[in-house]
């Protein structure tokens, strides 16, 4: 702790959570090492690819959730929002027969709009974020079913759509590393979000909102407007997740989505972002998403029943947050 605090660097906002990130990272390494020893199948390239692929959708959703949580809020609508965006893409591409870029843009726009709406409920109508996004979660779930007529929409008429997530541009260039595009998209989204948080006005105000909203307001900043902007940004990232899931399944499954928000929040928490707001990192969140994917994959390889995987994941969440509490207490005691 003192080593970190004694030399605050320019990336201080990224570093305040250094210890927890380190902890999460160490946990990830330990898991990978443990599973490698336990099973020779774990460290195979196809399996690693599968883990990364599995982490990509949850990772992107978790990045969106991180943005909101840093402001001191929460977004429960990321799961069904993702489905809603996929359905919108399906409508535009399959029903209306528009070209692929239009479908992608429509999905991201749909996510942005739903984020704008959530943000407005929270900032302007003062509905608590938990309630506002719980409402949005149900609204978006219902709309997905209504729009799709409760049937899956397939992307068979849009050649190349499945390649968005499952193809590998990296593999075409470097055949030895067939990294799926979905993973590249996760890293790109994470990179952009991290940059926005660390370097832009929007990011600065996100931390300020979570740290002390009243102080931000008293500094003469239009706090409501920035809060809405953060929710909208989160929504647009949910739109990206919608494209990813649609591409992986080659379809928009309107019944899907519920429960994804909890996995996303779990990844955020394991990554060391504080639910109280004001603190958090995207890198931590990505590590959190990877931990969850590694865990699910490794336990499956070891033939642990699906039911027990959930129990383990739950325990890991509590352990991660408990470790964070310990660290905080020690930091507080140190001065």
């Amino acid at each position: 702790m003192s080593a970190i605090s004694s030399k605050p660097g320019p990336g201080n906002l990224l570093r305040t959570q250094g210890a927890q990130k380190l902890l999460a990272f160490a946990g990830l390494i330990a898991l990978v090492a443990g599973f490698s020893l336990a099973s020779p199948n774990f460290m195979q390239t196809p399996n690693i690819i599968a883990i990364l692929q599995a982490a990509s959708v949850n990772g992107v959703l978790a990045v969106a959730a991180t943005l909101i949580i840093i402001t001191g809020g929460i977004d429960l609508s990321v799961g069904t929002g993702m489905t809603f965006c996929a359905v919108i893409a399906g409508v535009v591409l399959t029903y209306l027969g528009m070209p692929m870029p239009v479908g992608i843009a429509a999905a991201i726009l749909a996510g942005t709009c739903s984020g704008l709406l959530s943000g407005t409920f929270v900032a302007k109508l003062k509905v608590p974020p938990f309630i506002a996004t719980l409402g949005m979660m149900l609204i978006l779930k219902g709309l997905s079913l209504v729009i799709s007529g409760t049937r899956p929409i397939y992307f068979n008429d849009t050649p190349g759509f499945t390649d968005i997530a499952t193809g590998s541009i990296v593999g075409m260039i470097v055949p030895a590393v067939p990294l799926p595009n979905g993973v590249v998209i996760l890293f790109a989204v994470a990179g952009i979000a991290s940059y926005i948080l660390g370097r832009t006005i929007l990011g600065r105000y996100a931390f300020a909102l979570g740290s002390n909203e009243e102080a931000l307001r008293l500094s003469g900043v239009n706090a409501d407007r920035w809060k809405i902007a953060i929710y909208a940004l989160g929504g647009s990232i949910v739109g990206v997740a919608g494209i990813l899931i649609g591409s992986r399944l080659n379809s928009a499954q309107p019944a899907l989505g519920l429960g994804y928000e909890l996995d996303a929040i779990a990844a955020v928490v394991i990554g060391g972002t504080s639910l109280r707001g004001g603190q958090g990192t995207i890198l931590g969140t990505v590590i959190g998403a990877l931990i969850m994917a590694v865990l699910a994959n490794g336990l499956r390889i070891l033939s642990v029943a699906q039911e027990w995987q959930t129990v383990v994941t739950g325990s890991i969440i509590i352990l991660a947050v408990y470790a964070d509490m310990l660290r905080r207490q020690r930091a507080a005691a140190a001065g």
Partner: protein
Amino acid sequence: MSAAMETVQAAPLISMKGIDKSFPGVHALKSVNFEVRSGEVHALMGENGAGKSTLMKVLSGIYAADAGTIEHDGRPVEIASPRQAQEMGIGIIHQELSLMRDLNAAQNIFIGREPRTAGGLLIDEKKLNAEAAALFEQIHLKLDPRTPVSQLTIAKQQMIEIAKALSHKSRVLIMDEPTAALNDAEINELFRIIRKLKAEGVGIIYISHKMDELKRIADRVTVMRDGEYVGTVPAADTPVEKIISMMVGREISDEPPAIPDLADAETVLEVRNLNRGREVQDVSFSVKKGEILGFAGLMGAGRTEVARVIFGADPLASGEIFVHGRKITIKQPQDAVRAGIGYLSEDRKHFGLATGMDVATNVVMASLERFAGAGGVLKDPEIRAIARRYIDQLSIKTPSERQEARLLSGGNQQKVVVAKWLLRDCDVLIFDEPTRGIDVGAKSEIYRLLSQLAAQGRAIIVISSELPEILRLSHRIAVMCEGRLTGFLPGGAPQEEIMRLATQRNENRAPAGELSEDAKMGEKA
């Protein structure tokens, strides 16, 4: 004295006239006048609740006045928002510092005005840090602008607030009890900066309770009392006694209590050398059966903190607590309750009362096991009967014992909490601001109740920031200042004497330990 002559001639930077402000049920400001000139430190004094902070919130655009005018450089202005106040060059440093703990020093100073690059999209962190460093240079603050605020001492945080105000090119700087959390070395540092700002022509409004500070730093003093303007006097030539009498000069409407002879009474509660950080330092006292011990002091003197450590709500660093002569260990409130100590918080709604539940449930809340039968099933008829008995005994005004507590008036809510502790057989009752938020009529009823409880043989501790209340109730008065007991006075002691003890700062403060701690913070930075 020539400096004083100059300030007298200077035109006021800010002149507030006839400022009036009411909140529901409170007339907070009654036609108040106040002005501050360039290059002067104008102290604003008054007891808690006199309206100082409200007046400053009007000036800084947080509250809108109901009536009155504000002139800025001789021109009438409207100050509708904090931002507008900022633009006019009025900066305020709140008592509760309003910094964002998770951001660093430089980021806090320039929040909302970050220097930008890339067409306004990105924050120019280099420029941000350089500008903050320049500000720190200006006030001789040795601090890395990139230090997170959460790692800074309160004193350093205050310096950050000052730097923030300076960066707004503030010509008027309001400081609300800036020294409340500072040690002597830090206060000297603050005063050095204030003198520097003064020399540069900044007008400083200085809210404080502390007489010695006033003499050291202020040019003029304006006194407020009960929301009214009392007068403005030069700080150097006015005796402290005069200022105190301006502050407290109200009549006491109630008779002081008949003080019982307690020479032979048993000591119920005794505490020795209680310590907890800065707020509770070496506090020792005792209360006898049938005695009301009043705790007087200004806000932040540590009275509530003393009550909380005795009740186990906050952990004790060191000290001993005896009840009926037996030493007891109190680690959490349930230990205190078992020993017969009841605490009536100043914040009833948060800590004393389950406002959403009915009166009967609240009355039995601390003794619920007594009303549970086999398997924890509650005996509802008994609960309601006992509640009815207390409603009767304490004349709680409620349609029935099933009324929700939140629907009762403040005075009656307070009585419900009293009933809760009486039912629990508490010998020691600690009342923290027992009449806060209670109207005048109900106050005297609460006073009667407290006297009655003492007469029945309970030991009572009353914490109050209202001097008349302390005088009206107490058989003996303990006065605190900055975490220490500065003296005991007999009931009915003159108000001036209490105020003297309440503002008596300990000259031997800031021992080497605290200084070195500060030095450590400096190193960290």
